[in-house]
């Protein structure tokens, strides 16, 4: 079953020095349980494509379908609803809320989705156990290491059991060993049924994916299939 599909999607940023074409006529389908890696040099449009797939940004031309819905026809409320319940985001710089504890960060999307407190608490500790951080539930992000912060971010992204997890260079700020642990964890997330699209510069990380797409100048230049 298709989770997200881009059909001839482009994204142009109008800039004072002339329009910048970040994504150029890209077609891509991600099915349930897929594991896709986006590679390519800096500035080739990987993040922009990820934002389009995540309904954070809209295409300038072309059509984007999320679970068969044309995203262009959806309002802020529906798009926000998709981001809340159907998609999880993980970033290079973690983006945890610094004033909340690890558990509160994880519980935030649950609370927003209206999950009652007892269920929310149970799901939060289940998620923290899943990413191996039960002992750090009450720690603030500033009291956690980079790898630990990324685990909290992954737990938060998985809170509402999304169909799709998008990760933009999730190991970009981590050392080799910690990066491998995060890659391992994301592999487990995919094995447990969540479709995954990751952006990475690390070939070893990319090789874990079933499909590796290499981008160049806003287009998909090459596709490699593993497994």
């Amino acid at each position: 079953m298709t989770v997200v599909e881009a059909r001839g999607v482009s994204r142009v940023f109008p800039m004072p020095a002339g329009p910048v074409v970040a994504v150029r006529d890209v077609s891509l389908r991600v099915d349930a349980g897929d594991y896709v890696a986006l590679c390519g040099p800096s500035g080739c449009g990987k993040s922009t494509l990820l934002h389009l797939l995540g309904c954070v940004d809209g295409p300038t031309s072309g059509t984007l379908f999320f679970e068969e819905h044309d995203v262009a026809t959806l309002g802020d409320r529906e798009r926000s609803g998709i981001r809340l319940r159907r998609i999880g985001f993980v970033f290079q710089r973690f983006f945890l809320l610094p004033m909340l504890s690890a558990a509160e960060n994880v519980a935030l999307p649950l609370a927003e989705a209206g999950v009652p407190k007892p269920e929310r608490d149970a799901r939060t500790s289940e998620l923290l156990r899943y990413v191996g951080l039960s002992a750090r539930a009450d720690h603030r992000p500033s009291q956690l290491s980079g790898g630990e912060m990324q685990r909290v971010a992954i737990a938060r992204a998985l809170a509402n059991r999304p169909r799709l997890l998008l990760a933009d260079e999730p190991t970009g700020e981590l050392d080799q060993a910690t990066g491998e642990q995060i890659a391992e964890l994301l592999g487990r997330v995919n094995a447990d049924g969540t479709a995954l699209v990751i952006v990475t510069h690390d070939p070893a990380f990319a090789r874990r994916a079933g499909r590796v797409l290499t981008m160049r100048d806003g287009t998909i230049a090459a596709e490699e299939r593993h497994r």
Partner: protein
Amino acid sequence: MRAPPPRVSCPVLLSAVALWCTLALAPAAAPGDGHPGVLLSRQLADAQGLSAGDVVRFSTADSGAGAVAFTVIGIYEPTPDPMQINASKFEARLHLPDLLAMTASPDDLLAAETVDQINVALHDPAGAIEFARHITTRVPGVQARAASSSNRGSVFVVLEQFHLAIAIVTIFASTVFLLALSVMLVDERRETVGVLRLIGLTSRRVLAQVFTEGLLIAVSGSLFGLVLALASESLINRYFQWHYDTALIFVEVTPAVAVQCLLIAVPLGVLASVAASWTLLRRQVLFLARR
């Protein structure tokens, strides 16, 4: 001579002659009974170290000739008058017959019967004009007029307009300041807002959050301002009352003033925070990942 009971007497305000009174003022050698009574203003009593029971001597002449002894029977606080703020408050109040006995020329037998001018205080000052008209028609030859002159009123109208102008400028300037501060605060939180939007909070939801916060801050800020005003009110009053040696009240935060402040400050505070966030929320969620 026994002093007539105060009710019957007509207290005459002697502020005009206060100066020569003090010049001729000297405590009598022997505190004797039987002197007529006199009231002194607190300021005069303080300056001369006098209290009730002391005997003072008044003279109408610079030389002090023909001084008459009086017993101080009380100290009074002169009615505060903003128009007289800088005037000396060295005053004495004598019973009318005593004053006449001192000032009347011995050659003029009628002088003791003559009074040029008396001030009358009414329980209801609003009835002054009506009362004056009444006196004028009832007692031919007497000119009565209300003391509250139009001149005094216009001074306060000018003062109030001045206050209003200061208030408008202050509120405008602080609103601009508040808005700038809110923009800075909100900009500091753009990452937080971005994360919330990415997680799936609608912009309306984030705005509601900001609104609630703005309301809380505006209310607590206004209350803080009021408490500060109330606290400094007595300080300001005490300083100026000391400085001008008067019982006049200079500042007063009345309930009406407090309510007016809240009515202006709270909506402005909320408006500033919402306006500041609005600029942020109108932008795409994208900017977050772009730093």
